[in-house]
């Protein structure tokens, strides 16, 4: 008997069966649920951001005009509209794909986060993260090593050897904030955000490096989404670039052009706001071979 088999004998729920009464209550709850809210219909490829590792996406873009629900159910997650006020209370959340730091270590990868995201008080469209710049500043890897180490610490025991400069694939600064792509234990690639140097790492993701590089002049997204951070929502997109890609820009609905950092076949950008979690909420403009083409994110993922 190996240790997993031995453990399984201690399963606290090994012999648990719900009572008929409990099951009846659950079925009654199901009836309520089906009466009150319409289902999501159809699969919508590309409307969600790919989470860590680009596997089955767990995050979902907010849906405008989604059926409004009645009063919150007992025990149901709290809901609220993110920053810019475009989403009604019944709309799908653009929730935290990452579990956030905030004194707590980051999760390797979270699943859907519809629950317990705080209401963002300023729905007036003011962008937070005041020092943020649309054009990043490239930084020497040695200068971001402290941030990379902070990120590594957040993974706890999953990250065994502190990163060195050789592990850093891409690093950029936008105002006070640092975004770094850094190899975990010299193998898996992670992205990490240090938005406020005083707070340390805000979140991190494990990235999918398994799929082949895009063709020349093309790009692909590996991770895209929006997360609620300490100063409000922020979006990010990280991807790979084929040979000859000269520049990648993210065009926001308000016309802001966010210049992505590009290095060694990887590109990355982040910005205040939650457009990255919306269905094709931005356009991605790729410059290669002296020409530019713009894409919807759903054309670029996977």
């Amino acid at each position: 008997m190996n240790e997993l088999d031995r453990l399984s004998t201690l399963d606290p729920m090994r012999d648990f069966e719900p009572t008929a009464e409990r099951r009846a209550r659950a079925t009654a709850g199901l009836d309520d649920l089906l009466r009150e809210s319409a289902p999501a219909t159809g699969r919508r490829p590309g409307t969600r951001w790919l989470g860590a590792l680009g596997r089955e996406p767990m995050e979902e873009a907010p849906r405008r005009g989604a059926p409004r629900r009645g009063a919150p159910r007992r025990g149901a997650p709290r809901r609220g509209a993110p920053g810019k006020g475009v989403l009604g209370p019944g709309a799908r959340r653009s929730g935290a794909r990452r579990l956030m730091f905030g004194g707590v270590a980051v999760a390797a990868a979270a699943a859907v986060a519809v629950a317990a995201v705080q209401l963002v008080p300023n729905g007036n469209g003011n962008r937070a993260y005041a020092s943020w710049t649309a054009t990043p500043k490239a930084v020497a890897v040695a200068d971001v090593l402290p941030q990379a180490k902070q990120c590594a610490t957040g993974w706890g025991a999953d990250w065994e050897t502190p990163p060195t400069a050789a592990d850093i694939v891409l690093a950029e600064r936008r105002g006070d904030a640092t975004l770094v792509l850094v190899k975990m234990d010299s193998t898996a690639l992670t992205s990490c955000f240090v938005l406020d140097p005083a707070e340390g790492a805000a979140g991190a993701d494990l990235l999918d490096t398994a799929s082949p590089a895009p063709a020349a002049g093309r790009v692909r997204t590996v991770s895209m989404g929006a997360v609620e951070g300490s100063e409000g929502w922020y979006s990010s997109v990280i991807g790979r670039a084929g040979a000859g890609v000269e520049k990648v820009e993210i065009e926001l609905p308000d016309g802001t052009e966010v210049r992505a950092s590009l290095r060694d076949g990887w590109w990355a950008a982040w910005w205040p706001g939650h457009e990255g979690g919306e269905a094709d909420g931005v356009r991605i403009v790729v410059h290669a071979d002296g020409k530019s083409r713009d894409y919807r994110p759903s054309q670029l993922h996977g």
Partner: protein
Amino acid sequence: MDHDDTAEERFRALHAATYTDLLRFVKRRIPDDDADGVVSAAFLVAWRRFGDRPDDARPWLFGIARNILANQARSRLRRGAVDVRMVGDHSTTEADRAPGVDARIDLVRAWWALSAADREVLALVAFDGLTDVQAAAVLGCHRATFRMRLNRARRRLRAGLEPATDLSSPVETWSRT
């Protein structure tokens, strides 16, 4: 509408097939009083995302519930893991009367010496009965990553059970497959 009727029927079938498993999954992680609320919230999310469900819906549902747990109480989030309860948590006297008591006490002790993150990956397999592919889906990580973590957690559990184990022996390697 036919489509909606079909979706509703399918969702009812999913509920019937997974309700007990999901309730067990949640009750392994939080006290019974709160479990029904989390289960119903998870089904609400599942219904709203029903069109996006993967073929294997059970780990998908577990992942939804896990995240609700993580978000409802950040205090439950220890090193990024949703911690798992276990027989013996509050019942050492009961355990004392059971057969194989020494081995059992050792196991419980070794379990609690692990990190919450280790406990979570072990529990997904040993308690929740998931395959590595399914467990990776619950955590939203790559299968190879899950296997790496599971291997490490098993190694640490074994080390906890057998203090004489040479901790400097080679660690497991893993590869992307």
